[in-house]
C-alpha cells in the first residue's frame, strides 16, 4: 500500500516554462511534506517543505502548494532551468509519538529541454 503517490514517472518541460510536479497521499496523519531532488549517483537533496497548517510555501523559483482536502500537493518551478533536470521525490511525515520517518513517493524524472 503506497501512501505517497507520484503518478507521473517522467515530465519534460521547455526551459523558461513552468514545471509542475504532482503528489497525492492517502494517510491523513501526515502533517509535514517535503520535496527532494536527486541527481544520478547522489543522495536526495532537500528542496522545500510545507506544514499541513499552510497551503503554500515559496522559496525563490520553487513553490509548494498543499490541498489538504484533496490530499494533494504540487511543486512549481518557474522559470525552469536545465540544472533542474533531476528526479524529484515527494515525501511525507506523520509526527506522532516522536516519529520522524519519511514516506517517499516513487519519484518523477524531470527533463528540462533547452
Amino acid at each position, binding site marked *: 500500500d503506497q501512501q505517497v503517490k507520484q503518478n507521473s514517472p517522467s515530465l519534460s518541460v521547455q526551459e523558461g516554462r513552468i514545471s509542475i510536479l504532482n503528489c497525492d497521499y492517502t494517510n491523513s496523519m501526515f502533517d509535514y511534506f517535503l520535496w527532494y531532488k536527486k541527481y544520478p549517483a547522489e543522495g*536526495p537533496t532537500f528542496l522545500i517543505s510545507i506544514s499541513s497548517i499552510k497551503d503554500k510555501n515559496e522559496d525563490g523559483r520553487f513553490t509548494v502548494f498543499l490541498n489538504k482536502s484533496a490530499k494533494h500537493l504540487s511543486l512549481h518551478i518557474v522559470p525552469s532551468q536545465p540544472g533542474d533536470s533531476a528526479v524529484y521525490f515527494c515525501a511525507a511525515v506523520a509526527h506522532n509519538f516522536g516519529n520522524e520517518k519519511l514516506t517517499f513517493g516513487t519519484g518523477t524524472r524531470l527533463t528540462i529541454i533547452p
Partner: protein
Amino acid sequence: EAGVTQFPSHSVIEKGQTVTLRCDPISGHDNLYWYRRVMGKEIKFLLHFVKESKQDESGMPNNRFLAERTGGTYSTLKVQPAELEDSGVYFCASSPREGAAFFGQGTRLTVV
C-alpha cells in the same frame, strides 16, 4: 561543514556473504536514519536512531539486517547473510532535533 558520508559507495558481494555499510552523520545531528531504494522504486524507511537508541525499526526487512549506532555517532548496517533481493541503494540521512533530513550519497549494494 561535512555532509552525511557513507562508505563504501559500491559493494558487490556473493549471496550468503556479509556486508557492513557505514554512515557518518552530520556532526551534532541526534537523528540518524537508514533508507533503501530497490530497483528504481520508492525510497523506503528502514530504521531511525535518536542518538544511540533505536526509535523506530519497523522498516527493517528481517533479522538478517542489524543496525548499530554505538556512542551516538556513526552507524553501521550489517546484512548477514546477504540475499539477492537485498540489492539496492542504501541511503543514510541525519537531521537535527527539528528540520529536514540530509542524505548521504548512498551505498549501491549488488548481491550476485
